[in-house]
C-alpha cells in the first residue's frame, strides 16, 4: 500500500462522514446502493461511518459522473482509459467517467463484453483514495491501479486493510476475517482468462 505525499487523512474529529451525489446526475436508488455497499467495505475495517446526505453541497464526499473536461484539470477520455479519480483527504471529490458502460449488478463476470466496467469495484478503489490510500503494487489489492473489463474485485485484501488501519485504526467490530481478496474473473482484451 502507499499514501499520498504527507500522508493526508481525515482528522480525528471527522470519523462520521456524509456523501452526496451531483443532483444533475439523477442517479437511481440502485446506483446509489452500489456506493453504499462500497463504503461499507471500508467501514467494516476502520472506525468510520459513511451516510448518504440529501444535501450535496454540504456533504463531506461529493460524488459525480462527468465527461471530458469537467473543471478539475483531469479530463476524462471516453470509453475505457481512465475510469474515475478521487482526491486525497479532506477534499472528498470523487469523479467517475460518464462515458463508461457501468454495470450495477454483480454479474459482470458472466460477460465477455470488453467495455463493461463493474461500478462497485471502481467505487471501492476510489473510496480508498478519498480516505488517503495511494496505489499498491499488490495485484490482489483493491488499490492496484488497473482493472480489466469484465472483472469484479470488491473485497479488501490484507494489503488494503493494513494500509487503511495504519491511518485510522481498526474497527472494534472487525474480526479480521472479512478482508479477503476475491478476484472473481479477469478477462484480457483477447477474451482469454489471465
Amino acid at each position, binding site marked *: 500500500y502507499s499514501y499520498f505525499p504527507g500522508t493526508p487523512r481525515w482528522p480525528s474529529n471527522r470519523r462520521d462522514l456524509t456523501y452526496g451525489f451531483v443532483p444533475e446526475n439523477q442517479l437511481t436508488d440502485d446506483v446509489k446502493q452500489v456506493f453504499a455497499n462500497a463504503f461499507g467495505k471500508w467501514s467494516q475495517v476502520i472506525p468510520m461511518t459513511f451516510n448518504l446526505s440529501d444535501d450535496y453541497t454540504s456533504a463531506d464526499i461529493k460524488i459525480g459522473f462527468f465527461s471530458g473536461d469537467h473543471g478539475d484539470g483531469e479530463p476524462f477520455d471516453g*470509453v475505457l*482509459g481512465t475510469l474515475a479519480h478521487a482526491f486525497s483527504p479532506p477534499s472528498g471529490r470523487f469523479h467517475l467517467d460518464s462515458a463508461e458502460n457501468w454495470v450495477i449488478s454483480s454479474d459482470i463476470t458472466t460477460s465477455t463484453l470488453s467495455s463493461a466496467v463493474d461500478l462497485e469495484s471502481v467505487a471501492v478503489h476510489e473510496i480508498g483514495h478519498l480516505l488517503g490510500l495511494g496505489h499498491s503494487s499488490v495485484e490482489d489489492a483493491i488499490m492496484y491501479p488497473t*482493472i480489466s473489463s469484465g472483472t469484479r474485485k470488491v473485497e479488501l485484501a490484507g494489503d488494503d486493510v493494513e494500509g487503511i488501519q495504519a491511518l485510522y485504526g481498526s474497527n472494534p467490530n472487525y474480526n479480521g476475517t472479512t478482508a479477503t481478496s476475491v478476484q472473481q474473473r479477469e478477462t484480457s482484451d483477447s477474451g482469454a482468462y489471465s
Partner: protein
Amino acid sequence: HFFPNISSIPSWLRPNSTKKTAWDEFQNFTGCRPGDKINGLNKMKQYFHYFGYIPELPSNITDDFDDSLESAIKTYQKNFNLEPTGQLDSQTIQQILRPRCGNADIVNGTTTMNSGKPVSNNTSHLHTVGH
C-alpha cells in the same frame, strides 16, 4: 451509461463493436525499444507523464524513444511486477492498455509502490552470506 445487469447491455456494445477506446493506439508500439522513433510515441510519453512517471515534459515532445521514456517504462514495470526491461514488450503494453484509475501512481516524484521501495524489500532480492 448504467446497466442493471449484463444482459441489459445493447447488442451494439457487444464484443464485435469496432469502437475505439482511449488507449487502443498504444498497441502499435509493441516491441518499441530505446533508440526507436515511431510516429505517435509522444502520446506514450504523455501517458507516462500523466501518471507521474515522467516528471516534466518539454514543450516540443518528440517521438524519440529516449532516456526519459526508457526510465519511465522501467519504473512502471517495477510498479506492476513486470520485468524491468525498459522496452515496450508485449506484457507491458497489455498492462498499459488496461483501463485504470486516473490518479497518478507517482505524486511529486515519490511513491511507495514497488519502484519506491528499497531493493531488500523485493522478493526477487537474493540474500547472500559470506563464510
